[in-house]
C-alpha cells in the first residue's frame, strides 16, 4: 500500500507492507536513525516519536496508521535557530550517559512542558514513567527537564515587551 507521512515537516510517500511498524519506517525507509528501536514490546520508550499532537511508542504503531498524519522525531526537535531548550537541558545537565533512551526522553519531555510548563519533580517522573534508562541516570534526566522548564520560563519572560 502507498502511504504519505509528513515527518519533521517533509512529506514522504512510500509503498509499504501494511505490517511495517512505524519505527522501522522511520529508521529503515527514511534513514532517520535518531529514533531508537529498543524493547519491541512498548515497555522501554526508546522509540517514542510524536504522531500528530502526542508522543507514541512507534514500535506499537503501524506505519499505515501514520498515513496522512504528521510525525516528529528527535531530528525535528530543534530548528534552524538551534537546539530545543530540552536538548540544551540534557546536554547541560548531563541528562544522558549512553544516549539510547535520550531521543524518547526528550520528545516526552517536550510534550510535558507544552502541557505543564512548570511541572513538579513528581510530575516529571510520572510523565517519564513509561520510559526506561538502563544507565539508570534518572536523577539527571529529571534535573534536565526541570532546568528546561526554568529556562523556558526565562526565555518566554524575556520575550515580553
Amino acid at each position, binding site marked *: *500500500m502507498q502511504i504519505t507521512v509528513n515527518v519533521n515537516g517533509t512529506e514522504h510517500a512510500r509503498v509499504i*507492507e*501494511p*505490517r*511495517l*511498524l512505524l519505527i*522501522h519506517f522511520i529508521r529503515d525507509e527514511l534513514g532517520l536513525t535518531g529514533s531508537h528501536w529498543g524493547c*519491541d*514490546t*512498548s*515497555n522501554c*520508550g526508546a522509540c*517514542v516519536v510524536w*504522531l500528530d499532537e*502526542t*508522543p*507514541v*511508542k512507534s514500535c*506499537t*504503531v*503501524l506505519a*499505515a*496508521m501514520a*498515513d496522512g498524519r504528521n510525525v516528529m522525531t528527535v531530528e525535528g526537535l530543534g530548528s534552524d535557530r538551534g537546539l530545543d531548550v530540552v536538548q540544551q537541558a540534557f546536554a547541560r545537565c548531563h541528562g544522558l550517559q549512553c544516549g539510547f533512551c535520550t531521543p524518547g526522553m526528550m520528545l*516526552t519531555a517536550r510534550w510535558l512542558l507544552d502541557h505543564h510548563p512548570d511541572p513538579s519533580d513528581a510530575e516529571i517522573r*510520572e*510523565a517519564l*514513567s*513509561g*520510559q526506561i534508562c538502563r544507565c539508570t541516570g534518572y536523577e539527571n534526566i529529571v534535573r534536565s527537564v526541570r532546568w528546561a522548564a526554568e529556562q523556558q520560563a526565562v526565555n518566554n519572560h524575556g520575550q515580553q515587551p
Partner: protein
Amino acid sequence: MQVPAYVEYEKATSVQHALTLLARFGPEARILAGGHSLIPMMKLRLAQPETLIDINALTDLRYIKATGGELRIGAMTRHADLLSSALAGQHFAILHDAERVIADPIVRLWGTVGGSLCQADPSEDLSAAFAALKATMVIASLDGTRTVSARQFHVGPFETVVEPGEILTEIRIAIEPGGGSAYEKVGRRVGDWPVGAAGAAVWLDGAGDSRAGGSKAGDSKAGDSKAGDSKAGDSIREARIGLTAVGAEHFSAAAAEEFLRGAPASEESYARAGQIAAEHCNPVSDQRGPAEYKRHLACELTVRALRRAVARAAAGPGGVT
C-alpha cells in the same frame, strides 16, 4: 525482531464504513483501534488476522458526555481522555483511580477504552471497573445496535460477545446520586498488568437523598456542612464489586455484593465482604504471583476499595478522599 505476520489493511472512515468492511472481509478481519494490545499480540502470533480495519479516523466515537441520566463514553476514547475527564471523575472516581494505573502515560495517550475492553485480557483493569459500575455496552452491526451488560460482555479470556461483523461503539453508566466508588490495584511495577485489583461502587442508605447527587454534582450542595458528617450510622443500600486478574466470574463478586446490601458501612462488613469475594475467586499461579497471594489480594483490595468508596459516598461530590 518482532513484526506482525502479513496482513491486509483498510482504513474506515465511519462506523457504517467499518461495518461494511467487516462484512466484506469476514470473521478473520479485526478492528484496529489504538493497537496497543492487538499489535503486540500480532507480533507474538497470538493474533493473526487476515485484515486490519483501522478505526482511528472515527473521531465521532471519541467522547465523554453525561446525557439521559447516563455517563456515555465513546469506544475510541483514549485512556488519557478518560483520566483527564473531570466529568467522568466527578461521577465515578473509580474510573480515574483505574486509569491512573493502566499502562504508562505514553501508552494511555493512544490506547483506547473500547480496545481494552474488546481485547478482553483476563487482567484488564477497565473490565473490573465497568463490572463494578454495572455498565452497559453498546454494540453496533449493519442490522442496528444492541446492548449488553458489562458483566455479560466477556465469554472467556480474550473473548467477548462482540460477533464478527459487530463493533463496540459506546459504554454507558447510569448516574445514580449519592454513590461513591474506588479502585485498588497491586502491580509489580509501573505500567504492568495487575497481580490483583478490585473496584467498588457503593450507595449509602439515608445518605444519597440528602446530598448533592450524581447529575447535579458540582452544584452548591457540594460544600454543605452535612457532607461527610453522618457516616457512622450509615448502612449500605447497594454495593457493587469488580475484580480482575483473580479469576472472578464476570469480573465481579456477586455473593459479596449480596452480603453487603443492608449491612452497616463498617470495617467488619468490608472484611467479611472481602473474604466472600476471595472465596469465590479462582486465581491461577503465574509469573505475577502464586494463587494464594492473589486470593489474599482479592480480599484485601476489596476491603480497601469498599473503605474508600464509602468514604467518598459519605463525603459527597465535593468531598476529597
